[in-house]
């Protein structure tokens, strides 16, 4: 960590991405410091998921640069880059015919690590799903909340420095979601991992993130610390958005 002091964990600079006539990202610049949790919020189609997916090379840029630590996301081998990051999406995306343990061991196994199963066991413990009770089950034998815990465990099993989360709690009922948010908060705090979180839920963003970036039609409208935003969302687009959501 010390060797990289001053280097952002995630750094997008002047990123442009077009889909045909639509400009999904327009000159976007964002830095995320090591250990920081940044939330990307905005309305549907604002470009938040596209921006997230630039960091694991799932989206190819039209121009600009994306760096993960000291690595260039455009130049590096995308498969190797992805195996160094964690990733969770809304509906878990667990492999349905694999057991929970094998799902969690996925990335360590892809990286050829001999102790993949051991890692899976210990990280399952961390997310509150002890291996002896849950490791041998299949995803469809779990509840929605348990599946998202497994997906989170899978994203952490190889000890990544950065995890990318795309609406990880979006499909859950309110009680399960709040349980999971609390567990997540504890966990990333303990592990000191850098988090980039896409969410449509402004409360969730304020609760979990150190800073919030608001996107609007492919541009970053405002980036601010959660506390500042809560105190003063302002009068413009962001303020209107927050008032509409009843957060401010």
């Amino acid at each position, binding site marked *: 960590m010390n060797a990289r002091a001053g280097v952002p964990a995630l750094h997008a600079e002047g990123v442009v991405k077009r889909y045909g006539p639509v400009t999904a990202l327009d000159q976007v610049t964002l830095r995320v410091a090591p250990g920081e949790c940044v939330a990307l919020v905005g309305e549907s189609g604002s470009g938040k998921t596209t921006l997230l997916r630039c960091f694991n090379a799932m989206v190819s840029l039209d121009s600009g640069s994306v760096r993960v630590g000291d690595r260039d996301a455009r130049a590096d081998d995308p498969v190797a880059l992805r195996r160094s990051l964690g990733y969770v999406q809304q*509906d878990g995306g667990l492999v*349905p015919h694999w057991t929970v343990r094998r799902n969690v061991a996925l990335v360590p196994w892809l990286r050829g690590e001999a102790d993949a199963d051991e890692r899976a066991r210990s990280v399952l413990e961390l997310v509150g799903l002890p291996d002896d009770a849950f490791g041998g089950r299949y995803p469809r034998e779990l509840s929605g909340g348990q599946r998202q815990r497994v*997906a989170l465990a899978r994203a952490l099993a190889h000890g990544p420095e950065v995890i990318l989360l795309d609406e990880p709690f979006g499909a859950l009922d309110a009680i399960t979601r709040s349980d999971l948010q609390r567990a997540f908060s504890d966990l990333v705090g303990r592990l000191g991992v850098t988090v980039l979180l896409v969410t449509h839920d402004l409360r969730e963003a304020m609760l979990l993130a150190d800073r919030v970036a608001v996107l609007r039609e492919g541009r970053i409208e405002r980036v601010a610390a959660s506390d500042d935003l809560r105190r003063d969302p302002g009068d413009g687009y962001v303020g209107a958005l927050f008032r509409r959501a009843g957060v401010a």
Partner: protein
Amino acid sequence: MRRTVLPVLAGLALGGAAHGQEPAPPAPPPAAERPVVVGTKIFAESYVLGELFAQILEARGIPVDRRPALGATEIAFQALLAGEIDVYPEYTGTGLLAILGEAPPADRGAAFRRVREAFRSRWGVRWLPPLGFENTYAMAVRPGTADSLGLRTLSDLAEVAPRLTAGFSPDFIGRDDGLPGLRDAYGLEPGDVRSLLQAVKYQALVQGEVDVIDGYSTDGQIARYGVRVLADDRGFFPPYDAAALVGRRLADERPEAVAALTELSGLLDAPTMRELNRRVEVDGDDPAVVAADALRALGLADDGGRARAAGRDRSGSFLDYLWSGRAETWAQTRRHLLLVILSLSAGVMVAVPLGLALERVRGAAEGVIRAVGVLQTVPSIALLAFMIPVLGIGVAPAVTALFLYSLFPMLRNTYSGVRDADPAAVASARALGMTEWQLLRYVRLPLAAPVIMAGVRTAAVINVGTATLAAFIGAGGLGDPIVAGLTLSDTWMILSGAVPAAVLALIVDGGLAVAEKAVSPRGVA
């Protein structure tokens, strides 16, 4: 899997080789020992004549391999040219019109001399002297129709034809000496023309489904149903003298076989032939038995042929009949299964990789799958006929046709199975660093396996059904008794092929259902 399949295949291949002939001797036999292959077309008279050829050869100590029911003229003649068969019964008029494409002379002798010269110089194929009877076309109507409309001749028929429905054989409808020629000669234009097989034609006429049919002047059914034959008052139908048509190799190398076949020349007149046909078509006697009786009556053979040809016991129930033929049915079933397994394995080896490849280039996928689907619409008989010039007759063209039919369901299921396999799981696994190959190997293929297997299952059941048509090109299988039974209007014979084929389809379907379950990954509903 591999360990169990190979011996099964080997067993089938051995069983297949033994089908319908003597067990193969260990060393290649000298030319004279090679069995003479006797073919026939698909109608009762052709069967009887084929049996007469076969039994006179056997009576002279020459081994015979029978290849009955070779479809229409084109199939039988192509098989003769290709050396797949050595001899089959043909008619001079057919030789002139359907094969040479020439207008026939009205005189019987001139017609025979013309085909003899033309076939010898063009293909080295030899017409033996005619058997003695003519089997020309006969247009028949119900007596009631004839009386109420005052029909005696084809000229009379032409005047009322637009009000009538005709039931004609598929080849009669298309041949110059059939319907097109009648149009030119008589202006005969039926209001509606249905394509009917010989086996059901007379019944359709008598029951009023159609009003006029094409028959043959030696049909036993004419007498049975008392239908009225109209006179060919303009002498349109060409001479149709029956004779043995002998392939080049037999003609050149086997004078003793040619001599034996020639013994029949001139001995069969039309009443004799009609009587033999009646026994087969109306009484349901086995053509082999009828032929044996005829040879004995002609003084050409002793009782040996009859003993060999003794038909299956029909005194008991249908189940007794089936049981008495179990050895034959088992051999046909094994041959049938061989056709299905060979074609299906080849189909899997092509359709599954192609389906996976198409998933990578989805733009082209729909076009390719649709093109393969068009194959499905080619009528099986047409597809089989196309293959004879290239692949001859027998197992090769049958397996090729079945292979082509099996592709579509397997290709479609492979493509959509892999394309639709759990998109969220695929997206996540890719984002976590699986390569495309790993995604295919560990996620998409296992999830698609039951869908692919369902495609294999569909193809297998279709193939079990379609393989019955392989009998038309001499590939054997359970289609043999079905085709022969249809020709002879013999329901038991039809069922002795159809019932095992249906049972086979159920067993194959059940077996593959188990396989489908076995390849379904755990944890997936």
